């Protein structure tokens, strides 16, 4: 095994969180030598995405940009009483794999979480009393407030050139924006993208029944935009090949179009691609470095003063477990925290509150679009509506998006009763593909005692290390939530849109890992105010190992009814700031 020269900072996983932290530290602390390990390849606008990305089979269906499941996957079961099986192919979620992480091929729906969501348990217990929450829910406060995060949300939005309309500027409500959002210190850096027809029909329908629709915030740059780091995004072409694809126009904000080129330009960041971390080395008091397999599969050990783990939810959790860091969560004994509070979201395609509408006389051109190209309403997100007389808690953002529906996966859905094949199917796809719209609630997934991650006792990755095992199912709380929203919110909006056909659903069968739903998977290394109830503090610092920071959605105590990446970005900026301004000087646990 080769001995590699010691470095100051070692980052594991070069996605949104890792890219932001690398860039901030490189810019702000010029003395640091920074190395990043990334298991996937380095792919950029040029030479990669510019020429080959309009291919649904290769990228949309065969998932070329995602984690190679042949090497590493997860195992899954709905409950402890079952035995887990590997997810052999995609798959509910699609982890990223490559420099830039999953945001290379994300949609770009970019939210801030609601202010009270950072004190969710306190908020709900104060409003409804201590007995309101189901006994088995383990939601908790984060240990950081919206006010503390606001400047970092702003920094993330400026850097990624987010396009939207503010609903609340310094406490003053703004027409046309989201009236429920937390106060912003400044407007979005770019105006909303040009929004396709289907979502505007949703906007009109929602407004007609009394809601306040607003443009869904988007990381698809509507115009050429130069960010505070001097990085320039191209203008979105609305080509419709967005989620699952790299952007040919350099218009999708991702680490590869923003923070990573900026970090590399400092000359102080080295990215080792095709380098797969398998252990955080430590002596019980501090992390000493990381052991990884290099591009040819050989074991290497890189020592460092500071280690940042930003390998996304599943690998963050697995690497802590593989390294014996923290105590593994045991749901029966109620001990340990690593692996606890695994959360997901209801809603995308299979289970959840979902509405499809079709019009004989309206051409919605679903093939055009950009990843985040829609209108949303927030009246039924989280605790924005009164749950006093309801038998559930939580909710979600409701949006109609037009990301571009390529036809292998997106020729449907078809009106109820349409045949699945044969001449009748052919007629139906001919009639309805371009005359439809789809809207859904992105439903909150609270944390529960019985939903968690640990190491699988049987299945291993290509290098022989145990896979991560996910034990997860919905509960009656979410079943009641999606039923209520479907019947009371989606139905009236669908009717107000005056479609020829509609199909509104509010079912939530057992969680099924086989169809794609969303890559919004959180928890496992959650943050909090004490080592008793969390793995890291609100800066992502591991309790007891002050030179190891964890960044990304694995630190979220529970999942919101929003896409997560805006908050991943804001927290990463806050972590980088704490390291640069305080930890590098003083070390130790940050208060």
């Amino acid at each position, binding site marked *: 095994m080769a001995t590699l020269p010691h470095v100051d900072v070692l980052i594991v996983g070069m996605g949104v969180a890792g890219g932001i932290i690398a860039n901030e530290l490189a810019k702000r602390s010029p003395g640091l030598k920074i190395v990043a390990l990334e298991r996937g390849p380095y792919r950029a606008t040029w030479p990669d995405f510019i*020429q080959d990305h309009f291919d649904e089979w290769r990228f949309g269906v065969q998932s070329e940009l995602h984690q190679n499941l042949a090497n590493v996957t997860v195992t899954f079961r709905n409950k402890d009483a079952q035995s887990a099986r590997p997810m052999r192919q995609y798959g509910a979620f699609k982890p990223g794999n490559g420099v830039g992480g999953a945001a290379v091929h994300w949609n770009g729906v970019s939210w801030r979480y609601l202010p009270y969501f950072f004190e969710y348990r306190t908020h709900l217990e104060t409003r409804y009393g201590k007995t309101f929450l189901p006994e088995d829910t383990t939601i908790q406060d984060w240990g950081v407030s919206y006010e503390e995060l606001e400047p970092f949300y702003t920094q993330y939005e400026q850097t990624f050139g987010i396009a939207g309309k503010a609903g609340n500027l310094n406490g003053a409500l703004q027409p046309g924006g989201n009236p429920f959002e937390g106060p912003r210190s400044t407007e979005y850096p770019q105006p909303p993208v040009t929004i396709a027809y289907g979502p505007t029909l949703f906007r009109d329908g929602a407004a007609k029944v009394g809601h306040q629709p607003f443009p869904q915030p988007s990381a698809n740059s509507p115009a050429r935009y130069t960010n505070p780091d001097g990085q320039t*995004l191209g203008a979105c072409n609305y*080509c*419709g090949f967005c989620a699952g694809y790299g952007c040919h126009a*350099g218009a999708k904000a991702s680490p590869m179009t923003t923070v990573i080129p900026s970090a590399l330009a400092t000359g102080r960041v080295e990215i080792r691609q095709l380098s797969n971390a398998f252990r955080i080395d430590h002596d019980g008091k501090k992390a000493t470095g990381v052991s990884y397999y290099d591009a040819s599969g050989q074991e290497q050990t890189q020592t460092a003063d500071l280690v940042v783990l930003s390998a996304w939810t599943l690998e963050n959790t697995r690497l802590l477990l593989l390294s014996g860091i923290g105590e593994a969560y045991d749901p029966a004994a109620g001990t340990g925290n690593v692996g606890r509070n695994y959360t997901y979201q209801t809603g995308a395609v299979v289970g959840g509150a979902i509405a499809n509408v079709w019009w004989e006389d309206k051409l919605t051109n679903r093939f055009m679009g950009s990843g985040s190209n829609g209108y949303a309403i927030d009246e039924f997100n989280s605790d924005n509506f009164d749950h006093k007389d309801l038998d559930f808690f939580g909710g979600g953002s409701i949006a109609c998006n037009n990301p571009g529906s390529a*036809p292998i996966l997106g020729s449907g859905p078809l009106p109820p009763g349409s045949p699945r094949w*044969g001449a009748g199917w052919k007629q139906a796809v001919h009639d309805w593909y371009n005359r439809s719209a789809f809207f859904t609630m992105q439903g909150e997934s609270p944390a529960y005692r019985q939903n968690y991650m640990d190491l699988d006792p049987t299945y291993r990755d290509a290098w022989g290390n145990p896979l991560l095992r996910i034990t997860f199912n919905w509960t009656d709380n979410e079943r009641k939530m999606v039923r209520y929203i479907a019947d009371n919110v989606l139905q009236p909006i669908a009717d107000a849109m005056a479609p020829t056909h509609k199909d509104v659903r509010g079912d939530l069968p057992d969680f099924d890992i086989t169809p794609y739903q969303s890559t919004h998977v959180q928890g496992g290394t959650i943050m909090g105010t004490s080592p008793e109830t969390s793995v890291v503090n609100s800066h992502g610092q591991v309790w007891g190992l002050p030179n190891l920071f964890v960044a990304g959605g694995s630190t979220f105590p529970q999942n919101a009814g929003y896409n997560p990446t805006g908050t991943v970005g804001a927290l990463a900026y806050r972590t980088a700031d704490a390291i640069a301004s305080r930890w590098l000087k003083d070390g130790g646990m940050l208060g």
Partner: protein
Amino acid sequence: MDDPQTPTPADAGEMRALLHRRRFLGAGALGAAGAVATAAAIPLALAQQDAGLAAPEAPGTPQPGAGPALLRGYVSLSPFQAAVLEAACERLIPADDLGPGAKEAGVVVFIDRQLANEQAGFRGPYYRQGPFTPGEPTQGDQSIMTVRERFRIGILGLEGEAQSRFGQGFAAISPARQEAILADLEQGKPDTFGSASLVTPPTEGAPGSLADLAPPVAIPARAFFTMLLSYTQAGFFADPIHGGNLGMAGWRLIGFPGAQLGYAGWIGKHGEEFTGTYQSLADVQGFAHHEGE
């Protein structure tokens, strides 16, 4: 230090220019060599229709401005297997007044090419370590069997169902009978199927006998149907560079214009029909079988 450089981000206009240049170069360099004469008369004819050009005088006649006609043929399937699949796929997507069906659109060529990659499943990379113990439906298929193997057995099953019910092979029975078999498979009838239901060797006059197929092997019928439908629709709708969707027949059926650089000028025109030219990634890359835009 290995320092991968990102180019200066270009805006859409620059990207577009670069793509056009690439396409022009591609078409020039490759097109000049002349189209290869092949038996690919159908795709070429369909392609010519796309461009509104006259059909070629003779199959394989080099077309001005066209890139090389690509050779078509089966790399994974035997002629018998291809014939059964063609018949089955054609029932799933039949030719009718709305346009070509699966057969004419080259769906089986698409499937055949996918079968050459033994590692992939429908959704791409496949975790292939044991144990391979069946689980709950929510945990997904756990079989080690490759897609190629599933097709091989499923084709024998289709043939066997046709022989045992109707006394003839699948490709020879009427469309209505083919449909009846497929509709049953969709309902899980029979539960599993494969070589066991074969009555005679698959191809009349073929050397060998039923014994060559022993021992019997079977797969779940409903899962095979779902897989067949997924691959058939994928072959109908995937970019023609993958071998199916000839003449962009699948895209034309539903109104999907294909590999477009974008719709910046269209996205705000609500409810208007897109009037641009449909194009394949082949057009974008300069392997133009007709000129886009």
